[in-house]
């Protein structure tokens, strides 16, 4: 957790931007691989960042049920918290091999 977050939870930071990184089909849906999403408080839950993204890009909503989320090298649940400086990574269905 970045130093400026102090002890974090519940701390209000108005107008903070969170970076969302998209892969696969979501790059097409969102029109770019990276998006800045405005949130009113940090840390923010993954669910709240996804909701803000869906407000900006309504078409993304159809994909969210099949999309995993990651922070760093960890897949996280929707109630995980995103701290200042962290990027939310969206991983739609995979097709490697």
């Amino acid at each position, binding site marked *: 957790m970045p130093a400026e977050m102090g002890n974090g939870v519940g701390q209000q930071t108005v107008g903070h931007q969170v970076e969302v990184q998209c*892969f696969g*089909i979501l790059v097409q849906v969102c029109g770019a691989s990276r998006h800045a999403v405005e949130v009113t408080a940090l840390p923010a839950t993954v669910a709240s960042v996804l909701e803000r993204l869906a407000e900006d890009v309504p078409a993304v909503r159809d994909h969210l049920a099949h999309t995993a989320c990651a922070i760093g*090298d960890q897949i*996280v649940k929707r*109630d995980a918290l995103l701290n200042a400086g962290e990027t939310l990574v969206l991983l739609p*269905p995979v*097709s*490697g*091999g």
Partner: protein
Amino acid sequence: MHEQASNPTGPVASAPVQDAGQPVRLTRQALELDPLLGATESPECGALVVFAGTVRLHNDGRRVTAINYSAYAPLAEKAIAEIEQATLERFDITRCEIRHRIGDLAIGDMSVVVVVRAPHRAAAFEAGRYAIDTVKHQVPIWKYETYADGSHAYVKGCALHAG
């Protein structure tokens, strides 16, 4: 992907794996079998199974001219390492090494290689199948196909376990 499996029994040349540091499971370079075969040689093993996925000319009735593979590298590298370890724990095998290429690939290029060595062939075949199936389901990599008519599309895939 076409599937290729072989079980060569002859000696293989010894060669270093990629570089002296950590193995690189995700690479933009062309995949090469010889270094992997050399690095995994073992006198305890009577079976070597190699699976290679190669870029196919057709997919879903459309003529493919090229594929771009993209990956979320921090997680993909880790996921492949975990699949190697899970395969080692699940089957009576000695080695499991997986490499996946990303970037722009042409028809016929190898996109993924799985090398399994085991004392006996049954476990080696089963482990190789398990490893490639798991790669297809659990590694954050995406195919973006280009078709003969100039159009493009991401290939439909398997959902990762979302939290």
